[in-house]
């Protein structure tokens, strides 16, 4: 009974399944997708509703895919434009010198910045984007 009724309910947001209307469930799904709905009884009703309602199942699946894609973004690193790192280091050096006086470190720093700038340029020639396969913890 449950399943055929659920199919018939597709698109009928006012109909109650497991004590919740699809409209109510729809509003809970963005938080429910990663366990953000924490009142136990509601969780159970929500679970029962989704189990029996194809419409809300499909919507929850959409949220899951969105969340998974967002998690996946975390494993990507965009490669900064050439010179960005060196520019940032130069700005830092400027700020440091204003504070601490120019005498300290200046000889060293020039050599160091040069090396970094070279490295950044060499890396920049490769691609607009590097993806590193860092592992996220499962789940």
């Amino acid at each position, binding site marked *: 009974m449950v399943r055929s009724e659920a199919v018939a309910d597709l698109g009928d947001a006012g109909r109650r399944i497991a004590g919740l209307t699809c409209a109510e469930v729809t509003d809970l799904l963005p*938080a429910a997708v990663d366990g953000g709905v924490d009142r136990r009884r509601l969780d159970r009703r929500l679970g029962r509703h989704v189990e029996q309602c194809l419409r809300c199942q499909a*919507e929850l699946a959409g949220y899951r895919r969105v969340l998974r894609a967002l998690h996946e973004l975390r494993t*990507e690193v965009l*490669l900064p*434009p050439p010179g960005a790192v060196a520019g940032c280091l130069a700005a830092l050096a400027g700020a440091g010198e204003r504070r601490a006086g120019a005498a300290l470190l200046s000889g060293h720093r020039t050599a160091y910045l040069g090396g970094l700038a070279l490295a950044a340029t060499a890396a920049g020639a490769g691609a607009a*984007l590097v993806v590193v396969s860092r*592992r996220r913890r499962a789940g």
Partner: protein
Amino acid sequence: MPHQPQGDALTDPADDELVARARAGDRHAFEALVAATYADAFTLATRLMGNEEDAADVVQDAYLRAYRAIGRFRGDARFTTWLYRIVANCAATSLGRRGRHRHEQLDEALLVVDDHADRDPERKASDAVDRVRVQAALAAMPEKLRVVVVLRDVYDLTHEVIAAELGITETAAKVRLHRARKKLRARLYPMRGDAEGEDQVGPDEDVRGAV
């Protein structure tokens, strides 16, 4: 419940030894930290700002602030997490300055995606497609919503931290996350009946369709 990425298995580009030396005032160590973490900070800033030019400015700001504050960084959090908070804060400041009316162009670079090698090809391909689409959807999203969903769902910062860095209440952070997820879902996996919900989303909605 999600926590700070304390035990996160992501490798941390900031080496403990360097962090310790930088905290003790070693300028070279801090510069090496910048070099080691720049790409990560830049990636976060680009996702928050929606383009690379603004991102570079935000990152520079963030490192200047980190440099001044490194003495106050305590070893109980990861350096990158601490840095990300500063980047988020600088991005929020910059977005506030930039004003509400400018809509960002979708940055081409964000759409160039390579992929992991360790997945079955079908899942891999579908994930890659999802990610390209999700990046486009993020870039087209009102920035107030985008910033929260990036910090929470991509970078796994807590609502408490997000609220603190953006200068909003935790409730506001949660409401924005809710709206952001709804918009992403409706845009990427539309369903019948979405239209009415979308109408409530407010004045930033004209950004939609920019892609």
